[in-house]
């Protein structure tokens, strides 16, 4: 009984219930939604968001925010795609190193501005969101890199793999998720990220190197944004200076917040964020299936996020209240 109650009081349970209810409702109208094919579509919608969300989660847990990830994704994708176009002789898998490296560098710039000059992350990354997007236009001369330049080996990673024919990028996203889990829950520095976000004043008093930890989370966020950049090239086969990564930060932050990460820092779980991403994936997949016009999709998508937060909040408040009542009676 006690264990059961604890499970239901956990944030993750609420999101899981919402996912199940949502899928059942959509499935009642369109039975096709509950097929394996559809699951595949949902899964293919999520790996980029999942990877971005892992980095963003660490940043937000450390009581910061990274608004620039969409632009970092775009910039890293563009640099990598241009390398493919102008130096086709370079082995395609080195693209991963280039994309991640570019992301780390951009994340380092964010972190350095924030820690050295003690600027608020929301302002710095709002600035670099525009800066990095602008740089993407400059280096690409505002031109898209088309399908024929993206190596087909890279593109095929989004189509298949030897394991149940599930595309490689899904495994990569799951791998990043597991690594983030290990880092956040089982490494000393990972716990320091939580401590820092939970009480930034106390952190240095306990020997936590605040500057280093902050810099690190922004570099991780950049690295993962870079990784998601080359995965964008793999998934869609092209890189476009205005579209690639545009609005990515919105999806990612929405997933992280739905996943129960406190915007005040210190609180969050990898499982919760994973479920948050899945809920968004289900919604994205359901909208076209339900015949909702592209023009209104964005509005509905936004509404779903707000509704999810409201449901979650009221469920949790009631849970806390009933727990308090139980305690008072005891």
């Amino acid at each position, binding site marked *: 009984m006690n264990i059961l109650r604890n499970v239901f009081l956990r944030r993750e349970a609420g999101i899981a219930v919402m996912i199940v209810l949502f899928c059942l409702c959509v499935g009642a109208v369109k039975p096709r939604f509950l097929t394996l094919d559809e699951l595949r579509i949902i899964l293919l919608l999520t790996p980029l968001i999942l990877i971005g969300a892992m980095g963003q989660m660490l940043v937000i847990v450390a009581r910061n925010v990274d608004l620039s990830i969409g632009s970092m994704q775009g910039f890293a994708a563009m640099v990598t795609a241009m390398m493919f176009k102008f130096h086709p002789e370079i082995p395609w898998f080195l693209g991963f190193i280039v994309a991640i490296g570019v992301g780390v560098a951009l994340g380092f710039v964010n972190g350095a501005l924030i820690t050295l000059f003690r600027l608020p992350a929301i302002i710095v990354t709002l600035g670099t969101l525009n800066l990095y997007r602008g740089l993407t236009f400059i280096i690409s001369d505002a031109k898209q890199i088309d399908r024929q330049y993206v190596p087909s080996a890279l593109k095929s990673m989004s189509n298949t793999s030897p394991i149940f024919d599930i595309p490689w990028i899904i495994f990569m996203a799951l791998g990043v998720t597991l690594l983030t889990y290990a880092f956040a829950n089982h490494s000393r520095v990972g716990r320091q990220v939580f401590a820092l976000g939970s009480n930034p004043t*106390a952190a240095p008093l306990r020997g936590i190197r605040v500057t280093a930890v902050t810099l690190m989370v922004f570099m991780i966020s950049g690295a993962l944004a870079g990784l998601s950049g080359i995965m964008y090239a793999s998934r869609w086969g092209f890189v476009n200076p205005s579209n690639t990564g545009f609005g990515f930060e919105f999806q990612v932050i929405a997933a992280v917040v739905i996943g129960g990460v406190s915007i005040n820092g*210190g609180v969050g779980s990898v499982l919760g964020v994973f479920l948050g991403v899945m809920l968004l994936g289900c919604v994205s997949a359901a909208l076209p299936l339900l015949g909702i016009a592209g023009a209104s999709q964005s509005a509905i998508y936004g509404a779903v996020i707000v509704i999810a937060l409201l449901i979650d909040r009221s469920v949790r408040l009631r849970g806390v209240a009933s727990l308090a009542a139980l305690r008072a009676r005891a």
Partner: protein
Amino acid sequence: MTTMAEGAKDTPLIAARGISKSFAGIEVLRDIDLDLARGEIHALLGENGAGKSTFAKIIAGVHRPTRGTLALNGAPVEIPSPIVAQKLGITLIHQEPISFPDLSVAENLVLGRSDGSPLGRVPWAKMTRDAKGLMDLLGVKIDVVKPMRGLSIADQQMVEIARALASDSRLIIMDEPTAPLTPKEVETLFDIARRLRDEGRTIVFISHRLEEVRALCDRVTIFRDGAKVQTDTIGNLTDADIIRLMIGRPLREYMKKLGAAIGEVALKVEGLTLPGVFSDINLEVRTGEIVGLGGLVGAGRTDVARAIFGVAPAASGKVTINGKAVVITEPAQAIDLGLAFVPEDRATAGIFRSLPVEQNITAAAPGKIAPNGFIRRAVERTLATDSVRKLRIRLASLRQPIGELSGGNQQKAILARWLLTDPSVLILDEPTRGIDIGVKAEFYDMIGELAAGGRAILLISSELPELLALCDRVLVMSEGRLTANIPRAEATQEAIMSAAVPRSGREAVAA
């Protein structure tokens, strides 16, 4: 780990020589020579700003001295950071325990101890086991896998003490640990402190409460204006001596009630009930009268005040203000009706920390500074200046964020805020908590003057001497009910305490 026995028996654990500290050119500590012996509980006393906390922070590595030397067991030592202090076996327990509220108790115990590489694994199982062991050792029941957030302040302090033991600290500094504790929790804390002393550890105890210092400490050092005034065995000093040394002048009878003419009933409460919190509260306060509301923490006193003021309204009951029956559902209404409420928790419910002092003072009287919706800066400034002068608030500038002021001066500013609304009824909830004794005396004078000026005052306080000295009547609450209504002549500490202690089947009284 070094042993506690090293050094000759009479070598002090810490020997401070000529310690001085300046912040931005202002000297806050001057030439402190102080020895802390092994196995003693040593009190640091002084008004706020006297330098005792700064001195403690220097020993704990939070601040570095501008001049002077420290020796540990006779050997010179540098303490550049709290981490080094901890390695040397020195732990500072802050007044409001500094913890990570979202992390578990067990994690809070070990976090930041600089053992192992950053990417090393967190040994969850061992950590939890060790934490449980420490809690057992202290004899406290704290679930170590629960987050810190849910813990009472007393339990949070226990965790801090456990943390000190985890690193086998030889010196544990407690900065005003008892201010937020109930009497029972204070006793537990003292028992543990005595046990640690008997193990040969040194405890430094910073407090404002003389009776606690007397009950617990072996020696006392008194600070005034950044200098050490005297160190002595506690038995050699009377309370009057200590107060004189602290404030630099003999304290006149600082607790007295001015004779005020008691008039009409200003506040009348009948049958006020909020199920599960308090029930059937009947009380009245007349103009010129100071009515005390005593009881243990958690008896529901603050809840009654909050209900009257409309913060968390009662479910049933009648409130009459100046003869008019009213229903108050929000504080704005209460203010319009001439009520004022100085809340207990200054930091979270009282001040607007980052706003200037002047805005804090005028915050409850928008009608005065902005009669037509636009704030008149000149009026605001005049009103604030007046208040600062009248209440003798010590500050650098009216534009200073209020958070930079000392606790006593913050509290004065809050009182000033409410006086600007010209209230007929003032509810003060623990107005002198955490305020040093000099400012306290001023506060008592002010409360007396306010009553003499024809205001009705309901004073909630856990300090019995305060209730006895200031109040015309003392009401006592226990477990959500009024259990006594004691006139001034009959009020004693025993009478109040016996009504405050919960017991079953007692009749509620009408007050």
